[in-house]
């Protein structure tokens, strides 16, 4: 079963996305911040991460940097409400699969996620 990790500090988004993708037959893990996400990554090997950019404890880009520093090439899709050019460039330079802006079209998100997970399988 394909594995998806959702990192977002908003519980509503985490839980909604978990249910949403579970219905698509995906095994979903969630983390409310960078620390928790790194813990999950130590134990599980998700095929894809949906990563929120703006988070309290550690920003999405900072987390991405830590993941890459650890030599983990996992696919990452950034999700963000802000349209900050610099953040987007920084994320791209660290290697991401996509950048999705909130508010997002759920079907489009789903399409991207399914495509990436299928490629993985």
């Amino acid at each position, binding site marked *: 079963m394909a594995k998806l990790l959702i990192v977002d500090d*908003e*519980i*509503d*988004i985490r*839980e*909604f996305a*978990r*249910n*949403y993708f579970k*219905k*698509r037959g995906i095994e979903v893990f969630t983390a409310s911040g960078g620390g928790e996400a790194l813990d999950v990554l130590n134990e599980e090997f998700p095929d894809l991460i949906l990563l929120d950019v703006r988070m309290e404890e550690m920003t999405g880009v900072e987390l991405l940097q830590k993941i890459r520093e650890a030599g983990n090439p996992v696919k990452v899709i950034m999700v963000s*409400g802000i349209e900050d050019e610099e953040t987007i460039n920084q994320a791209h330079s660290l290697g991401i699969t996509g950048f999705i802006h*909130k*508010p*997002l*079209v*759920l*079907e489009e998100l*789903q399409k991207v996620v399914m495509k990436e997970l299928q490629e993985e399988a």
Partner: protein
Amino acid sequence: MKTQNFSKKLDYKEALEAASRGMIMVHDPQLLIKMIIRMIVYRLKLRHAGMIIYSPEKKEYLLTISKGQTGHRIPQGFARFNQASPVIRVFSDPRFRPLFQNKHAILWHEMNKMIWQEGLLNGHGCNPEVRDILHQVSDQMDLLGVVACVPAIYHDKLLAVLLLGEKQSAEKFDTEELSFFGALASDTAMALRNAQLFDQLRSQAQHNHDLFLRMTMSLGAAIEVKDEYTRGHSEGVTRYSLAIAQEMLKDEKYPFDEKFMEDLYVAGTLHDIGKIGVPESILNKPGRLTPEEYALVKRHPVDGVAILKPLSELERSMAGIRYHHERYDGGGYPDGLKGDEIPIIAAIIAAADTFDAIVTQRPYRPSRTPQQAMEEILKNRGTQFHPEVVDALERVFRADKIIVVETLKREEE
């Protein structure tokens, strides 16, 4: 069970009436919709409910309101729905209208039945495209955890969709509940439409109004170009006038509203516009004016009103322009009005005008200090100037920094 149903019925009636009443009154229906959705979730014990609302700027539907249990509730501000989204398509395309016309809603548990039952769509049931869209709607509702979608349509335009999650008891919605949702949605549509119209009107009015104020300023600039010694004068007069009026507001006798302040702004800016008709040689003459020349200068309040007459928007400011050279004792021009016959807007401008004239250098004399200007005006309190206007100016002068700023500005130049 019976009594419960009865009380439920009353709740709806009450809520619906309150909703319609409120919807008509508010210009921003979002807050009200939020309250109603919260109430629906709470009273009917739904897992969640939300409303996607059309945004005319984004030309898309945004899920702006969402209430209910975490995990079921769709995160607010997270999702948008474009024209290609199945739930939007199904309610925008008239072919699907027979599907929900009677029940006011598309119900998920009937969806599958509908897709397979041919003929349900007035003969469109066998159309593969239609069937495909219905599949997508069903799929989308499933993913969103939504068991009923209620469209808010106004004049064939889909303005919003109410999304309803399942009841915690997993019971289905009854006819009464569905007709309540239908009525609620149509009220919502009307309220949203009104709000949009109101916004459009407001921004259009705002635009016109800005244009009007800018035109006032350029008219004011016209006279300043011609009369170099009064450059900045209109602005100074306007500033002092507004400060005086603000001070007078503290007295219940002068309940100036925002409109008055704006009229005062316009009148202050344009009070000397009639000087456009006075030859520059007279305006900038260093020596004393001859009686004939003075007579020409004295025409400017009347000429000003004549120049501005075609602009009906300026009507309320006219008094400030025409009568700003009247004297409280009746010795002024053009009409020799006396005391309270002089409109207060003109009495304010008169004092501000003199104040600024004294502190400004003129062709025939150097400028004097604000202190001297204040003394001069106090000396003429009740003769040349309205006593209460003078009192207000004095209070402003003693307390306010505006005048110091003006002095500094002039010193810099």
